[in-house]
């Protein structure tokens, strides 16, 4: 390293940036990670659940030392109307075995831990510093500018999140549009570990992941989520920005009503809200991919829009970490060749394409469009609720066949409409 020049500068110490920084430092590169928050994780928020596989590849056995909340052993999905819930509840003693484990996390602690790992590996972490601009020389990114200081590097890794102004400044990414982003709002609600275990039927250190669709978002694409942490619950809603036109409710109002829903209220009773947060989720997946590399720069994690939402599963952090790994591998090769041009860094995209990251994003590319179907969030939850009400109501009226009961409700939507939606849904997954 020449004076004042790093091999790599990583902008953003979220999970993508720290994963990349960790691997680059471990390979002996001089790495600077710059974070605008006062510590890594200070600006970050998740629902949230981390699928472990991609971090496990980088730091085997990480779950033993990382600040994880609970291991998810139980999956729940509910369809809500304003006053009812139909829930699928899956639990298995096989859940979370070798490499399929996932954990609830809180980013403030988790990201700080991962950034510490990068530092231990030799990366330099500078916090409380906002990168204003990228340094561009002869069309090639060659460092960063903060205030009136310039810092040079052979390559810059943009891991600056969904609002990556830097990627836009150099034309790698178009501004995110309202149909490509969902707003998430979350409360962290404190309850004792005992109470959480009792209310959710969990053993110590076990957790539940619970997603909700239906009345939560008042007809808009989106839903609610609940994750159990050690002694808090993460409870929130997500709603696609362009969909808000279907309702007059505000985001804070949706969250308040969700908290008061009869399926939720008893679960959080006597809980104390200790934090409120909001964050954008880049949701359009494969169809919003930016240019992933250019001369002297690559883009990873949320900044690259690497998020998958399948309705029953939301993934961002495992993709972010994997993209950090592939970016690091491409940069390590580039360092060996001493060639940081676009053609050399193209290896990053090749590695992503060969991996689950772009394969999965491609696989689910039609799902975001499928979800923009208001029936999913209004008529189907109502239909399910009506069918259940019929099945479980005994009031002395003579019985009808179950099929007839169900068909009464299906006909309200139309059997062909339902079959068409089901077919489209299955095809897009």
């Amino acid at each position: 390293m020449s004076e004042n020049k790093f091999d790599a500068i990583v902008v953003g110490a979220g999970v993508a940036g720290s994963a990349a920084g960790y691997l680059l430092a471990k390979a002996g590169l001089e790495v600077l990670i710059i974070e605008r928050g006062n510590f890594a994780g200070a600006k970050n928020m998740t629902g949230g659940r981390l699928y472990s596989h991609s971090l496990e590849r980088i730091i085997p056995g990480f779950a033993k030392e990382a600040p994880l909340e609970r291991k998810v052993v139980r999956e729940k999905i509910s369809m809500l109307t304003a006053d009812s819930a139909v829930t699928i509840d899956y639990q298995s003693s096989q859940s979370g075995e070798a490499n399929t484990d996932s954990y609830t996390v809180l980013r403030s602690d988790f990201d700080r831990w991962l950034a510490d790992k990068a530092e231990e590996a030799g990366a330099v972490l500078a916090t409380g510093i906002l990168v204003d601009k990228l340094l561009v020389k002869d069309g090639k990114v060659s460092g960063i500018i903060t205030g009136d200081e310039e810092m040079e590097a052979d390559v810059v890794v943009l891991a600056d999140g969904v609002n990556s102004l830097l990627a836009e400044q150099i034309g790698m990414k178009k501004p995110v549009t309202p149909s490509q982003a969902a707003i998430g709002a979350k409360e962290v609600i404190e309850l004792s570990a005992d109470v959480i275990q009792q209310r959710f039927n969990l053993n110590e250190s076990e957790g539940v992941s619970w997603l909700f669709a239906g009345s939560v978002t008042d007809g808009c694409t989106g839903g609610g989520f609940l994750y159990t942490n050690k002694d808090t619950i993460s409870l929130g809603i997500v709603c696609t920005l362009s969909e808000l036109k279907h309702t007059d409710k505000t985001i804070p109002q949706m969250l308040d009503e969700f908290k008061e829903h009869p399926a939720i209220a008893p679960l959080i009773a006597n809980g104390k809200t200790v934090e409120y947060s909001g964050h954008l989720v880049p949701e359009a997946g494969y169809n919003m991919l930016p240019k992933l590399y250019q001369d002297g720069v690559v883009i990873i994690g949320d900044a690259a829009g690497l998020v998958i939402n399948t309705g029953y599963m939301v993934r961002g952090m495992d993709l972010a970490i994997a993209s950090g790994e592939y970016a690091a591998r491409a940069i390590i090769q580039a360092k060996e060749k001493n060639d940081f041009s676009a053609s050399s860094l193209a290896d990053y995209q090749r590695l992503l394409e060969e991996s689950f990251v772009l394969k999965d994003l491609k696989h689910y590319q039609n799902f975001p469009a499928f979800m923009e179907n208001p029936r999913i969030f209004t008529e189907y939850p109502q239909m399910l609720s009506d069918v259940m009400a019929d099945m479980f109501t005994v009031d002395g009226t003579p019985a009808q066949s179950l099929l007839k009961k169900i068909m009464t409700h299906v006909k309200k939507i139309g059997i062909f409409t339902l079959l068409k939606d089901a077919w489209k849904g299955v095809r897009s997954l």
Partner: protein
Amino acid sequence: MRMTIEEKLGLDKFFVDEDYAHIVIDKDYPDLAEKNKLVQACPAGLYKLNADQSLSFDYAGCLECGTCRVLALGTVVKEWNHPKGEYGIEFRYG
């Protein structure tokens, strides 16, 4: 009893930069629908419509999500930047 949004924001840790507004808006932007979008979507409820249909906005409780940037940059939102280093929201849980 519902907590107000102000009470919720009161739980969060902010380092407010008194000298620099990282978001600048056109409070008299003529299109009402455009202003209402922000009133509806801002998770921190920082955009409020006044009786005279002008918009008031306070950057101090900003959660830095970027919603107003995505919805209205170039219309109501004139400038959108991250707060300077060290300033703004600091999540203790996240």
